[in-house]
């Protein structure tokens, strides 16, 4: 072969090789290994060539031809584990990617927690806007929470009955501060409306089981609300309704930080006139909130805030009740490192209540609470460590003026500390282990320890199984404790198993739970109180929220079986807080410039102790009641139909929102309780305050 021919052949073969190298491809399909959904992942060859797969997960990439016929490639999509494989050229590849495990902080491990922060897509959410759009919720976070699984209330009251627990078994926190009197109207039998104005609420969560060790002194649940914080641009709103006015403002303060505040004032005049429900009843409310956020530097922030709520209710000159809630707080947050933060909060609250029935009785009570808490978090990705301590000093005074004056005073200091580690045990298993210790100066028995554990197992990306078990203690009434220092805290053990299916279009939760009460307070024969009370609450819940572009459906069903031996009930009897079955259905149409919602709620009646007959007592020269077995009868079933809607329109280049609500459209006379006259001759139905009522208003937001 001549030299020329050799070079010619070499050149031809080189061209051929180069040609072959350019025409070599790898192609295939990338998908989620679990759901089989196509993934637009990125494919990178070892020599730096790369291409993204299309929306169907298909890719085709030119690769250099190798004598082995194979090429090393890496495949990755954010949120998924990177995969390195040796691909065979010319063969169609099928590549499944596995999800990258989420950091511990992003998973709600405890069973039965509902949050409003939608960032966490791995649990059931109820967002802040839904507080406005749920019919009958009166734009109140507490009323809105009644649609959550496991949550009920006495007819139309705002207090929460969580899984058969009494209303006082729930702790309420506002920006980390425990609020002992969270209701605007805290009366003898029912409480109405909360002191938390939704205009300044940023997030809230409701835990019905397995709650965090940072929360103490609660047996059944916790509602934790956080107020708006730093705002960078002025915003606000002004509303006018038949109830009164409401306003909100938030604005940055140059070089300092920002301020958020709200002021609301309400009167009953127009509301009662419009709904023909005068009857000599009148009430007025006043709410104010202000919070300064001061940025000391990038890692230190100071918050100074105050809250005021006032309420007055009167029935002519024969009866009046007035309450005031004042709170002032200072909180300092410091982040010495990116993954470490600590907040120290110091606060003082004062609650005053006056109950006046001229000529008969006048009750004045005051509850002063001084508290301080330190909460620290340390985010280690796989571990999310939380620890802290809290101390609360409380002084209670009650003065009764009747035929003679009686004064009751007590004070106590409660201390607690906690530690909690939420960690990822494997790609799918997240575990929460925590413990809380707490003690109260009124009790001689020292510290109580609450171990709490829960686990979340990600069956798939959309299905989560959660199991929570925990021991909870609550000290109970301080006046009772002052008289009985040997009393130990009431306790409850919760076990809950829940299944969540969370997709873009749906939140679904099914839960089974058991709550065993121990050491409940039980009246003794000699007038003392002991820890002989027991009880249980067992049940099942189902919650579904279906979201569509045009509508949203929410359906909740709760089943509960609960018995308690407590206070003066010396045998295990149906719990007075047992609502055996309750159903709520809500349908909301999303209109182009507003919404229209309808809600139907029904619930079986709570147990009550029936009056069998009356007996003449010659000693007191009056009739005495003969009661039946404790809580052996039930009030009639409760039902209510509510309607609400809103419409946005522009006026003078400004958005205006018109809203209306019709509460109890069918005017059902839901019974709150029965009352008996002094001689027990007859029974009188005490109906819920919510008859058919129309509520209308306008709101002008400012941006």
């Amino acid at each position, binding site marked *: 072969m001549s030299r020329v021919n050799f070079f010619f052949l070499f050149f031809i073969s080189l061209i051929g090789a180069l040609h072959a190298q350019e025409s070599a491809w790898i192609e295939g399909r990338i998908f989620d290994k679990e759901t089989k959904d196509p993934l637009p992942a990125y494919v*990178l060859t070892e020599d730096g060539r790369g291409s993204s797969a299309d929306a169907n997960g298909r890719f085709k990439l030119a690769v250099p031809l190798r004598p082995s016929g194979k090429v090393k490639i890496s495949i990755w999509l954010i949120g998924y584990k990177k995969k390195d494989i040796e691909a065979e050229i010319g063969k169609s590849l099928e590549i499944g990617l596995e999800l990258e495990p989420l950091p511990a902080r992003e998973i709600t491990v405890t069973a039965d927690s509902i949050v409003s922060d939608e960032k966490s897509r791995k649990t059931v959410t109820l967002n802040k806007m839904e507080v406005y759009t749920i019919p009958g919720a009166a734009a109140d976070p507490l009323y809105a929470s009644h649609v959550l699984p496991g949550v009920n209330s006495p007819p139309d009251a705002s207090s929460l009955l969580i899984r058969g627990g009494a209303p006082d078994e729930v702790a309420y926190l506002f920006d980390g501060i425990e609020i002992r009197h969270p209701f605007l109207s805290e009366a003898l039998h029912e409480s109405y409306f909360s002191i938390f104005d939704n205009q300044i609420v940023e997030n809230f969560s409701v835990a019905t089981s397995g709650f965090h060790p940072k929360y103490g002194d609660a047996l059944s649940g916790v509602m934790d609300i956080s107020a708006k914080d730093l*705002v*960078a641009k002025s915003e606000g709103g002004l509303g006018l309704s038949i109830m009164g006015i409401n306003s909100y403002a938030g604005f940055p303060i140059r070089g300092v930080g920002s301020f958020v505040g709200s002021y609301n004032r309400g009167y009953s005049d127009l509301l009662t006139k419009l709904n023909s429900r005068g009857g000599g009843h009148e009430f007025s409310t006043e709410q104010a909130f202000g919070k300064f956020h001061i940025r000391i530097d990038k890692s230190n922030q100071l918050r100074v805030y105050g809250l005021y709520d006032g309420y007055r209710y009167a029935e002519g000159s024969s009866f009046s009740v007035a309450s005031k809630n004042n709170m002032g707080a200072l909180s300092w947050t410091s982040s010495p490192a*990116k993954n470490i933060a600590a907040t120290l909060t110091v606060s003082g609250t004062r609650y005053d209540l006056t109950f006046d029935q001229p000529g008969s009785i006048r009750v004045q009570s005051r509850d002063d609470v001084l508290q301080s808490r330190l909460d620290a978090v340390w985010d280690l990705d796989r571990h999310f460590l939380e620890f802290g301590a809290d101390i609360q000093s409380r002084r209670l005074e009650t003065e009764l003026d009747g035929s003679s004056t009686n004064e009751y005073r007590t004070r106590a200091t409660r201390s607690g500390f906690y530690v909690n580690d939420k960690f990822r045990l494997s790609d799918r298993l997240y575990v929460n282990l925590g413990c809380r210790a707490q003690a109260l100066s009124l009790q001689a028995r020292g510290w109580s320890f609450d171990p709490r554990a829960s686990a979340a197992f990600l069956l798939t990306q959309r299905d989560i199984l959660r199991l929570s078990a925990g021991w909870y203690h609550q000290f109970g009434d301080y006046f009772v404790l002052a008289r009985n220092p040997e009393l130990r805290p009431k306790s409850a053990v919760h076990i809950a198993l829940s299944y969540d299916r969370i997709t873009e279009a749906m939140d679904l939760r099914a839960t089974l739970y058991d709550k065993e009460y121990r050491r409940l307070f039980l009246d003794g024969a000699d007038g003392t109180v002991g820890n002989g009370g027991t009880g249980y609450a067992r049940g099942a819940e189902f919650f579904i929220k279906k979201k569509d*572009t045009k509508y949203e459906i929410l359906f909740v069903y709760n089943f509960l079986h609960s018995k308690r031996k407590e206070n003066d009930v010396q045998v295990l009897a149906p719990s007075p807080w047992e609502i055996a079955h309750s159903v709520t259905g809500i349908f909301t149409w999303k209109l182009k410039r507003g919404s229209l919602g309808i809600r139907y709620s029904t619930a079986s009646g709570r147990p009550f102790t029936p009056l069998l007959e009356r007996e003449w007592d010659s000693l007191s020269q009056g009739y005495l009641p003969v009661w039946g077995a404790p809580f052996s009868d039930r009030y009639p079933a409760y039902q209510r139909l509510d309607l609400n809607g809103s419409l946005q329109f522009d006026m003078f*280049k*400004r958005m205006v929102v018109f809203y209306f609500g019709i509460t109890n459209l069918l005017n059902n006379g839901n019974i709150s309780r029965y009352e008996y006259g002094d001689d027990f001759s007859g029974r009188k139905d005490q109906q819920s305050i919510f008859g058919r009522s129309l509520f209308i208003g306008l709101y002008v937001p400012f941006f």
Partner: protein
Amino acid sequence: MMMRKWALTLFLSATVLWLPAAASGAQSLNDPAVLKSFQEAKAKWQAGVNTWNRDLFKEARDLFLGCLMRTKPENVYLEYYVALADLQLASHAISNKDMAECERASLEGRQYLEKAMALDHGFAEAEAVYGYLIGLQLAVHPEQAMILGLKSMQHMERALAAEPDNPRIQFLKGFYQRYVPEAFGGGPDSALPFLEKAIALFEKENIIDPLKPSWGKDMALTNAALIYKEKKNEAKAIELLKKALAANPDCGQAKAELAALEKKEPR
């Protein structure tokens, strides 16, 4: 003797532990091949903006992704650039009424930014882009206008509060504000102060590090010019468009707008 053995074992263990780390560290942005690829990606992204070309955005995104995959430890700026390409892809998809692509690009872009923000809590510019991407999702989910709009504004405002002197955050806020309905506090009058502040801040900005974001001056000038054009202040619009072209002679939108204005108002 025992101590020496122990020290030697410790040294060897440390070496073994250090070696893979050192090997992976070699694939940093200092790697010339990765740096070259990154610069090519930035050029393609800018060319995409100049000519409003989807393919260039996609190519730029692929190159940024390639750099990201070859870089260890994770580089927050690369995550930011992938999201920035996603922002343009989502915007382009809206103009083509391809809502599925808009949703994909917005969601994926948000994921990259979440990662970047988790790694660098003070990365305010990433938060501004994040807020903007949520705003783009409004086109896909108009029924969630209240929720998405509120969220978008919150992130944008947090970014503004954290870094008020960042011109790109001011620009993004202004650009976003321009398309927010007046009833919600948006519109051209509300957007202009942000854009003008952005322009003033761009004049002072001097970015040397090629990794750090430096885009946006021409965009801020062009968008401010468009508002002045709407306000019939054509002289001011022309002045700003010329400045935009001085900053980026290839800015397609500035060229077209200037040509149209000069045709209308020959000098």
